[in-house]
C-alpha cells in the first residue's frame, strides 16, 4: 500500500490537544456559570434570596433550593418513645456484656421470664433469642413511661441504660426454642396470607415485612416466633384500643385496629408456632 506522507502524527496531533481541551473545558465552564451563578441568582431574586446565598445553595454549601424559601415546621413533636437509634445508643448496645446481664437477670428477671428467657408465668413474653435492640427499646420505654406495666415500669426504672443493654444482650444470646411441629402446620391459609402478603385492600402490610426470623425489619421490631399466644393477643388488643402507644409512627396501632378478633387470635396462634 502506498504511504502518502501527509505530515507527522505529532504535528497533526497538536490542534487536537488544544481544541479538545478547550471544547471540553468550555462546556464544563458554561455549565458552572449557568448552573451555579446565572440560574440561582435570577431565581433567587424572585424568592427574595440574595446572590451570595443563592450561589452557596446551588453549590450545596448552604441547605435549601434556590427557587423557594423552605417552609419551617415549628410545631413541637411529641414522641411516642424516647429511644432514638443514634450512634451513641448503638455503641451502648455493642458494648453490652451478657455476663453482667446474666447476673442482673438472676437478680430481677428470672422470676417471670425464666433464666433462659422461657417465660415461667402465663401472659409473659419469651425473651430467648429475642432481638437485643427490641428488648432495649421496651425496657427503655418502661423507664420513660412510654409504655406502662404494673411490675415492669417499676423494675425498669431501677435499671440504668448500660444495665438494660446488658440484660438485652444476655437474653438475645440465649438459644431460641425449637418450634413445635404439631402447631406449625395448623395455621389457616388466610392467616398465612396475612403474614406473608398482608391485605392491600385494607392497607394492612404483611407482618413479615417487619417481623422476620432474624434482623431485617425496623431495628426495634421484635422477633415474634415462638411467642406466648395470650401475650400476643393482649398486646394487639392494647394497640387496637390505643392503650399501648409506644410504637413509632403508630404503625402497630394502625394495623391492629384493622384486624378482626379472629385474625388477632389466628396471628397469635401462628406466632406461637414459629416459622415454616
Amino acid at each position: 500500500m502506498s504511504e502518502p506522507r501527509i505530515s507527522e502524527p505529532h504535528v497533526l496531533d497538536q490542534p487536537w490537544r488544544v481544541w479538545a481541551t478547550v471544547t471540553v473545558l468550555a462546556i464544563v465552564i458554561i455549565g458552572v456559570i449557568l448552573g451555579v451563578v446565572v440560574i440561582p441568582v435570577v431565581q433567587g431574586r424572585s424568592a427574595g434570596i440574595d446572590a451570595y446565598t443563592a450561589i452557596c445553595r446551588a453549590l450545596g454549601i448552604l441547605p435549601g433550593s434556590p427557587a423557594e424559601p423552605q417552609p419551617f415546621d415549628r410545631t413541637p413533636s411529641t414522641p411516642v418513645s424516647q429511644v432514638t437509634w443514634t450512634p451513641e445508643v448503638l455503641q451502648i448496645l455493642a458494648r453490652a456484656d451478657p455476663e453482667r446481664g446474666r447476673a442482673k437477670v438472676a437478680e430481677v428477671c428470672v422470676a417471670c421470664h425464666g433464666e433462659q428467657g422461657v417465660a415461667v408465668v402465663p401472659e409473659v413474653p419469651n425473651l430467648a433469642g429475642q432481638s437485643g435492640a427490641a428488648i432495649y427499646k421496651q425496657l427503655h420505654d418502661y423507664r420513660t413511661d412510654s409504655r406502662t406495666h404494673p411490675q415492669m415500669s417499676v423494675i425498669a426504672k431501677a435499671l440504668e441504660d448500660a444495665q438494660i443493654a446488658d440484660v438485652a444482650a444476655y437474653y438475645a444470646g440465649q438459644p431460641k426454642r425449637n418450634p413445635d411441629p404439631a402447631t406449625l402446620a395448623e395455621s389457616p391459609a388466610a392467616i398465612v396470607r396475612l403474614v406473608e402478603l398482608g391485605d392491600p385492600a385494607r392497607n394492612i402490610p404483611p407482618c413479615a415485612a417487619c417481623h422476620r426470623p432474624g434482623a431485617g425489619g425496623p431495628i426495634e421490631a421484635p422477633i415474634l416466633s415462638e411467642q406466648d399466644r395470650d401475650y400476643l393477643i393482649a398486646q394487639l388488643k392494647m394497640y387496637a384500643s390505643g392503650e399501648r402507644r409506644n410504637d413509632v409512627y403508630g404503625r402497630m396501632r394502625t394495623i391492629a385496629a384493622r384486624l378482626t378478633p379472629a385474625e388477632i387470635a389466628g396471628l397469635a396462634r401462628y406466632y406461637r408456632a414459629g416459622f415454616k
Partner: protein
Amino acid sequence: MRNVERLCLAHFWVAFGAFLAAAVLGTWQMWVRSPLGADVGTPGQYFMSVTAHGVAMGYVLTTFFIMGFGYFVAVTALARPLPGKAWAWFAFWMSIVGVIMTTVPIATGSASVLFTFYPPLTGSPWFYIGLVLVVVGSWIWCVLMIVAMAAWKRENAGRPVPLAMFGTVANAIMWLWTTVGVAAELLFQVIPAALGLTQTIDVGLARTLFSWTLHAIVYFWLLPAYIAFYTMAPRAAGGRLYSDTMGRLTFILFLIYSLPVGMHHLLMDPEHGNGTKFIQVLLTAFVSAPTLLTIFTITASLEIAGRLRGGRGLFGWIAALPWDRPMVLAVGLSFVMLGFGGFGGLINMGYGMNAMIHNTSWVTAHFHLIFGGSVVIMYFAIAYEIWPRLTGRGYTSLAPLRAQLWLWFIGMMVMTLPWHWLGLQGQWRRVANFNYADPIIAGWGPWVIVSFVAGLVLLASALLFVRNLLVLHLSPQAAIARPLYALAVHPPQRVPAALNGFALWNVLVLIVMALAYGYPIAQFAIAPSPSAIVHRIE
C-alpha cells in the same frame, strides 16, 4: 488459536446461561405483579428474584459477554496472539468464583437488596465480596486489552489501531474509571457494614459514589453494540463504513461524557446542590452527541450498502438492504428501540420532567428498552456473527435466527411501552404486588397483563436464542470464511495520536471528574452528615 476460541466460548456460555435463568425470573416477576398472579409468591421471593434477575442480566451477562468479545476482537482485529492468555483464564475463574459467592446468598434470601448498592439496606457480605471478585476479574481483562493494543502499536508504529480494538480499549479504560466509584463504596462503606464492623453508614456518600458508577456502567454494556454498529454492520450489509474518524470520535466522546454525569440519577436527592446537578445534567445532554454521530454514520454506511445493491431514490436503498442477514436485521431493530428508549431517556434527564416519573415504571421501561432491547439484541447479533468462527460450523438456515430477533424486538416493545404509560400514571417500581381492588390501580391491570404476555414472548425468544447456538455446535455444515470487519470508505492511513490512543482523553476525564465530583464528594468529609443505621438482612 484454539485456546482463545475456548476462552471466548467459555465466557459467552456463562453469559448466556445467566441470561436464560434471568429471563425465566423476569417473566415470573411480571406474572406476580399482574392481576393473574395475585396469589403467587411472597414479597420476599419477589425481591429475591429481582435481585437475581438484575445481578444475572446486569453483571454476569454483560461482564462475561464483554470480556469474551474483547478477547475475540483483540485476536481477530489485531491479527496477533492474545498476550497473557493465562491471566485471561485466571480472570475467568476468579469471576466464576465471584458469581458463585454472589449466587448462594441470593438463593438463601440473605442478599435480597436488589442489584443496586443503596445502603443502609445491606445483605450478606459474601454477596458483595463475590461481586468485587467479578469486578477484579474484569480489571484484569481491561489491562490485557490495553496491553494488547500497546503491543500492536509498537509493532505497527504510526499506523491507526483497527477501529474495533480502539472501541474495545475505550470501553476497557472507561470501565476502569467507572468502577472506581462502586469499588470505593463497597470496600470502604458497604462491606464493612455488612461484616458488622460499622454500625452506621453515610447514605449520601454511598449514593454519590454509586452514581459515579451508575451511568457509565450502562455505556460499558452499550459499547459492544456500538463496536458492532461501526465495524460489523456495514460489512454484513455489503457496504463500507462511512467514516472511521466518526467511530473514533464516538468512542472517545462516550469515554468523556459517560463519567461526569451520574448525578442525574440523584436529581431527587437532597445531599447535593442544584448547581452541581445542573452541571452534570448539562454534561449528560452531550451524550447525545456520540449517539447522533453513530446514527448518522451507520445510516450513511447502510445507505452505501443499499445503493451498491441497486437501491434507488430517496428511500429505495432501505428496501434493497439484505434484511435476511441477522446482523443487518438486528441493527435495524436496535435503532428503533434506541430511538424510543433515547427519547424516554431525555425525560429522565430533565430535572422537572424527571420529578414526574422518578421511581416509577417509566425508569424500568427506559433501561429495559435501551439495554435489554437495543443493546442485548446486538449481543445476539454479535453472537450469531462470530459463533461460526468460534466453532468452525455454519448455519443450515438463518430463519430461526431472524425469528428469534423479531420475537425479542416485539416482546421488548410490547413489554416496555405499557410500562412507560403506567409510569406516567404513577405506577411505582420495585414493589412486589399491587392492590388491583383499588379503583385507581385497577385500570393498570390490563396493561400489566399485556406486558406479562410480552414477557412470555421474550422468554420464548431467549430459549430460541440458546437453542440456535446449541444447534450450531452440532451443525454438519462447515463455516464459510469471510471478512468480519468493515473497511472504511476512506481507510485511514495516518491518524493524529489523539485519535489513536487515550492519553489526552484520560487527562481530560481526570479534570472533568475533579470538577464534577470533587466538591460533591469532599463535602462529606468537610461537613459529615448524620449517618444512618445499617439495616442488615439475615
